[in-house]
């Protein structure tokens, strides 16, 4: 298909490299957002914290993730 639509091989290789880099790097951001989301959810329900802010949960989740 690449040959049919005339995409240069070099461009495909470059994009492949970027995809690999992106996929490997995105894991950190995904985990980061997951923690924030979880903290927000727990904060709203007031679970696990005395003031209901969810701050201690953020810390615990960050520790647990690592």
């Amino acid at each position, binding site marked *: 298909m690449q040959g049919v639509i005339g995409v*240069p091989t*070099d*461009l*495909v*290789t*470059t*994009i*492949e*490299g*970027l*995809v*690999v*880099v992106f996929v*490997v*790097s995105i*894991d*950190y*951001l995904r985990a980061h957002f997951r923690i924030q989301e979880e903290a927000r959810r727990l904060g709203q329900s007031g679970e696990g914290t005395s003031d209901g802010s969810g701050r201690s949960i953020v810390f615990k989740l960050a*520790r647990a993730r*690592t």
Partner: protein
Amino acid sequence: MNQFFTYAVLTATIASAIQYTTPFLLAALGETLGQRSGVLNLGVDGIMLLGAFSCYYVALKTGSELLGIVVGMAVGAAMGLVTAFMSVTLRATQGISGIGVYIFGLGMSDLLFVRFVGTPLPVNPLPNLNIPLLSKIPAVGRMFFQQNLLIYLAFLLVPVLAFVLYHTNYGTRVLAVGENPAAADSLGISVARTRYSAVLVGCTLAGLAGAALLLLDGIFQENLTQSAGFIAVALVYFGAWRPAGVMTGSLLYGVVTAVVLQWKSLGIIPTSAADLATTAPAVITVLALVALAGRFAQPAALGKAYVRGA
């Protein structure tokens, strides 16, 4: 075979061996610094390719090889920033992210070459710099002291890197971060900053290695490095993460390459076996690696992302 063991041929072979050694030595020394800080960078080859292309393009357009070298190093540094950001800040799996950088460098250098240059035109190789008095010594002068600036720089970097690693505060910080980042962190050493700086310097040297490789022949082509960057990574293991060991490995590789090429040109190796013979340096390096494997311990935190309190 007798024609090989003549004064002129042997001198020329060793002089070329020194030249072939240089790109491997530069890249491997940079990788040594990075690995000593705990960061495994498998993207060296891609960075070398980008460094080589930028050096080629700038030298072609401006006519200044030195400016090309500076730009090649700058591109290496920029790629180092990307590599360090992925490995240190984003804590990406270092092996796979390095392969990503390699593929990107391979594709991008070729894409830029086809887009901006097209027909390969030669640039001038670096002129030889004769060291006064030493270059006049028979045989030795021709082999070692009539080389270009990058060759002297590469071999000078060996004691410099050894001194930095073993006799300076910065080197101690790099070694500490590579062996036990938690302990280093508890002593107030910034693990991230130390690793960033080591990777940045290492990748700058990879860019310089690309430029050195390009200026050997003065012409760029697709996949110019032919995986020299991966050989450089292997040479770091071969040299047991020590600058002198890395130099020994690079010299071995350079000598075998030069001898094989010389034998091919003299017809000692038959044409039918020429392609097979080209793989000799890599095969010998792998065999040496196998023989040395496990005798030296690698930096304990090599390839591991550091998370405070983990």
